[in-house]
């Protein structure tokens, strides 16, 4: 465990006398290993260790009776503070339509997540409309239509039209149907595919979303920081949803994405069914990452 690792590292150091800032940095090597093993991006790890070292020195861990326990606590608390605060709510528009744009890399779980969101939003007494704005993937529209049918949420779909136009018309359809929330499911795309990034930027321009959420796979490695940063720079992200947390990935991507995108992780996907969407818990995620 991390605490055992830090304990061993510090015990070796203390054999030779009192703790110093340099010694604490040696203890931090255990933390570095744990975080890298958990797939936290190496630059994010560097920044995190610097912050924690300052805190540990500042909290006079040097004088403490059980420095290794105190270091683990500082690391855990700082991780929770960085990944929080918890914000598992949709920030609805004060009046009229609320538009939610869902974006991310290929296969991250966007379409499934849109259906999960629709189910949750309806259970809050609202009337969501799902919009099939992925005009690229074979049978993407069929997929969302089937999901919508299974949770009895209407789906706006148009075949052979461009994504921005579909989304623009969807807003009108929502008003006609007296829906008050519009969820835009977009195609998976690479942050380095300029044409596709232009497409989602154009969708955002015409649909003017109140929420723009990045859907990211919890098993993503170092690249989580790279892609999240690119999406955050090109779109005005307001939140992140982390999927496939029902697996055994440590989920370091959570810290990477939170640090570089600068927006809260709102919900997590914990399965393939429409009910498998849960609020994000910073403390639970911290424990999972630290192993």
């Amino acid at each position, binding site marked *: 465990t991390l605490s055992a690792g830090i304990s061993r590292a510090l015990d070796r150091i203390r054999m030779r006398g009192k703790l110093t800032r340099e010694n604490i940095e040696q203890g931090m090597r255990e933390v570095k*290993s744990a975080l890298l093993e958990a*797939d936290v991006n190496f630059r994010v790890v560097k920044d995190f260790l610097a912050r924690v070292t300052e805190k540990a020195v500042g909290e006079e861990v040097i004088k403490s009776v059980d420095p290794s326990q105190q270091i683990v606590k500082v690391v855990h608390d700082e991780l929770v503070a960085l990944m929080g605060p918890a914000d598992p709510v949709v920030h609805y528009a004060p009046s009229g339509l609320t538009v939610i744009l869902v974006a991310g*890399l290929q296969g991250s779980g966007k379409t499934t997540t849109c259906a999960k969101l629709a189910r949750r939003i309806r259970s809050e007494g609202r009337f969501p409309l799902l919009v099939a704005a992925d005009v690229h993937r*074979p*049978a*993407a529209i069929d*997929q969302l239509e089937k999901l919508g049918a299974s949770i009895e949420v209407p789906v706006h779909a148009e075949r052979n039209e461009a994504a921005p136009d579909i989304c623009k018309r969807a807003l009108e359809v929502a008003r006609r149907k007296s829906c008050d929330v519009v969820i835009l499911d977009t195609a998976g795309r690479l942050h380095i595919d300029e044409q596709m990034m232009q497409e989602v930027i154009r969708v955002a321009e015409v649909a003017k979303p109140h929420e723009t959420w990045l859907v990211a796979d919890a*098993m993503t*490695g170092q690249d989580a920081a*790279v892609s999240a940063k690119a999406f955050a720079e090109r779109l005005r992200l307001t939140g992140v949803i982390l999927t496939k947390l029902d697996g055994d990935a440590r989920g370091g991507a959570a810290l990477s994405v939170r640090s570089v995108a600068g927006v809260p992780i709102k919900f997590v996907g914990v399965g393939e069914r429409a009910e498998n969407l849960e609020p994000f818990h910073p403390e639970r995620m911290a424990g999972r990452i630290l192993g």
Partner: protein
Amino acid sequence: VSVGRRLDAATAGELEEVLLGADIGAKLASELASKAEAAYRQREVKRPEELSEFVRREIQRMLPERECAEARAAAGPTVILVVGVNGSGKTTTCAKLAKRHKDAGRKVLLAAADTFRAAATEQLTVWAGRIGVDIVRGGEGADPAAVVFDAAEATVARKVDTLIVDTAGRLHTKENLMRELEKIRRVVGRKIPGAPHETLLVLDATTGQNAISQAKLFTEGVGVTGLVLAKLDGTAKGGVVLGIWNEVRVPVKFVGLGERFDDLAPFDAREFADAVFG
């Protein structure tokens, strides 16, 4: 002869960071960086500029020697089973493989054995139409093993050369789903001698160290003969394949380089190593 010269910490650190950023993993990255430092100290590498070439060669050496040949049945039809976690790129990879085999002059049949996910069968059906190959499907919620049974029968009856079986995404930690996959494997093996001749685990190149757990559990659950590293056209380098070869002995056979049916290429260790530093 000057006895040993140290590589400066900044250069060694940068080298390790390139490897870390490529998802090679902390342990292997540190080992490779140490090897580079030793090579520099012993003048095996003359100048710092040559370090990346040294590490690239080491990466190549850490991967299987020979080009991993695609498995083919000694006689009769070849069956390729495509497996992996949710969203990794299996269905698209099945389409790419179908195109590749068709271009090689073979009669191809696709089996849409994902009967669980919404519109999974529709998705593969679109691909079959675009490529011009036949497809065997089942009803929604049908037993995937039953679809595979039907596909195996059709393979024999229609004298198909290559049967490609697309399966539902599943997390390696879900035992009932891994058992379902093993049942699919048994069913096709009973119908067609030696089947499946190839079981490809499709891995998303953006995946971190969890890929090793995936490779282990899929290998334990159903046996894996090769990896397809999909989505390598992104910024992720897929360095986890080094750890997978090291610990699970599964070689990369193909890489996915895009979303069209031609975007599949045989794995090239040199290109892979170059891309890590690219």
